[in-house]
């Protein structure tokens, strides 16, 4: 089972350019903690002005309760660099996001939190949207094989950057790897001080 990255239902969020201000609005950014953001996810869409759940929003619909794969469109995660966005998605339960494309900083942030981003072409996404609207299938994500399987017999492959795949599969500690190069960093710093003495600190 080790090659199964995740499995579960898909929740469709049919929008382009879902920005990080929508994923988690500013009022939740004043926390100094890394946890406790699940209720803040998509806050302005998820709750009405009086604080009650917005029944029209997809996350609140009964059939998508417990979904752990989020499906969206183009340029997902654009805007602010706030890592609170992947924290909120993950703490709500989304470990995988499928979209046509992702904004750069958001993609790095997801990788650093172990969230798998899957990029699929628009026509494949269209099919997934149709199916997700029915919430018919459970999808299994095999990262090693780079394939998505459904329990009703469908399957499709996806591309992923080799480095991202490696880090997700091995859950590598991001800082440890660079720390092991400490001597190289020190060497670089000496060279830098000699070549560009004006770059000293304050």
């Amino acid at each position, binding site marked *: 089972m080790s090659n199964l990255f995740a499995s579960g239902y898909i929740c469709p969020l049919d929008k382009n350019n879902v920005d990080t201000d929508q994923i988690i609005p500013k009022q939740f950014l004043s926390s100094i903690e890394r946890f406790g953001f699940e209720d803040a996810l998509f806050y302005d869409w998820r709750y009405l002005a009086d604080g009650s759940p917005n029944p029209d929003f997809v996350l609140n619909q009964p059939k998508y309760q417990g979904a752990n794969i989020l499906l969206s469109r183009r340029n997902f995660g654009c805007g602010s660099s*706030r890592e609170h966005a992947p924290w909120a998605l993950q703490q709500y339960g989304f470990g995988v996001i499928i979209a046509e494309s992702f904004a750069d900083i958001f993609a790095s942030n997801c990788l650093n939190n172990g969230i798998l981003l899957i990029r699929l072409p628009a026509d494949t996404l269209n099919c997934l949207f149709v199916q997700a609207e029915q919430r018919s299938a459970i999808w299994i994500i095999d990262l090693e094989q780079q394939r998505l399987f459904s329990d009703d017999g469908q399957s499709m492959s996806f591309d992923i950057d080799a480095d991202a795949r490696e880090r997700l599969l091995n859950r590598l500690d991001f800082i440890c790897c660079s720390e092991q190069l400490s001597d190289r960093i020190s060497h670089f710093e000496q060279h830098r001080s000699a070549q560009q003495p004006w*770059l000293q600190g304050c």
Partner: protein
Amino acid sequence: MGLSLYQKIYQRHRVAALNAGTDLLYIDRHFIHEVTSPQAFAGLTQAQRAVRRPDLTFAAMDHNVSTQKRTLDAAGETSRIQLEALAKNCAEHRIPILDLTHPDQGIVHVIGPELGLTLPGMTIVCGDSHTSTHGAFGALAFGIGTSEVEHVLATQTLPQQPAKSLQIRVDGTLPAQVSAKDLALTIIGQLGTAGGTGYVVEFCGSAIRALSMEGRMTLCNMSIELGAKAGLIAPDEVTFAYLQDKPHAPKGAEWQQALADWQSLFSDEDAVFDLQISMDASQVRPHLTWGTTPEQVMPIDASVPAPDSFSERSKQEAALRAQHYMGLQPGQPLLGLPVDVVFIGSCTNSRIEDLRAAAAMIKARKVAAGVRALVVPGSGRVKRQAEAEGLAAQFLAAGFEWREPGCSMCLGMNDDRLEAGQRCAATSNRNFEGRQGRGGRTHLVSPAMAAAAAIAGHFVDISQENWA
């Protein structure tokens, strides 16, 4: 084959190759602020790691400070906790900080350049997407997340993969009353908010050379709204003249040495770009956004597009939704549309030149009745200069509020917020739903367009008589 400016800076900072596609890059300058750093410091503490180079790190208090009162608790209890955490973390790790009591305090992307902490050829990161601003100096500058902030604090490096390169050449002369902001909005309108995804953009051409450092910062600042990893402009005499005498800029013999080095920072004639685009500056008009993403933008004399004028279904739906949110109809002109609030500030447009352009619109007139207009200078230095030049007095006499420096209504984390349904002409960079306050309706414009809207009480074409 020649190298692009981006490739030159990238190669210079390569500490090691981590694997086939990823390099470890050295970071010359790390800016931090109160909102995206607390969890990074907590992570360091938990793993018992030290800050490798506190001397290359620099902290600012900006995102959630009150711009009315200079106390840590003035924007509420949670803000106070965050600001105090930053002060404590900086003291513990010996990181220099411009706190709220410092006369030079301000928005991180305004103070970095004006203190000479931002220099050509550097790699610069900050837990903030508008770090792209510093690219105006020919530095490779980009926003990072909190895990990466922790990584840079611990190692002064960051794993990176080479980005694709996009060259945007702008030749010709921008018309009167058309600013770098209008140019940025025009480019975003043409390429879309994902048009630059995966690319580092280098802006070049005679119109870029003609921009002041303030204008170049506005343009590079907005390159993130294009989805670009970073914006870059090769340093030139304008850059060097700006930097000379800045407090942290090199002095004496080091200045000469630095200058010789900086003069090699340009894209070679035969550098290869993955994509090249050219534009004519003389065709750029004053712009404003009509929707809820910066790509939903148009010239001031155009009308709100009909959703079905877009070829893609997803864009049609986005337009429909945005027009509903913004309270606008297809075909409606925005000239004459009344505004409730005018916000002049943010890391995009709160520098001295921006405030001069805004004040020039006043011409002894008053802010229209019923309009609330705020001017929030980007830093203590900008504020003092604006006061010395008499700009502050002009704003105050006209009925604008004149504030202390901070991010303020750009994201409304402090006490400056739009109410639901309020329409705002803002010089900031994001018109996302709820960005300035839940239900608030933001139209992004240049400082001159914003000030003119404050005076008229509605959007006007500043290239027409009366304003020009």
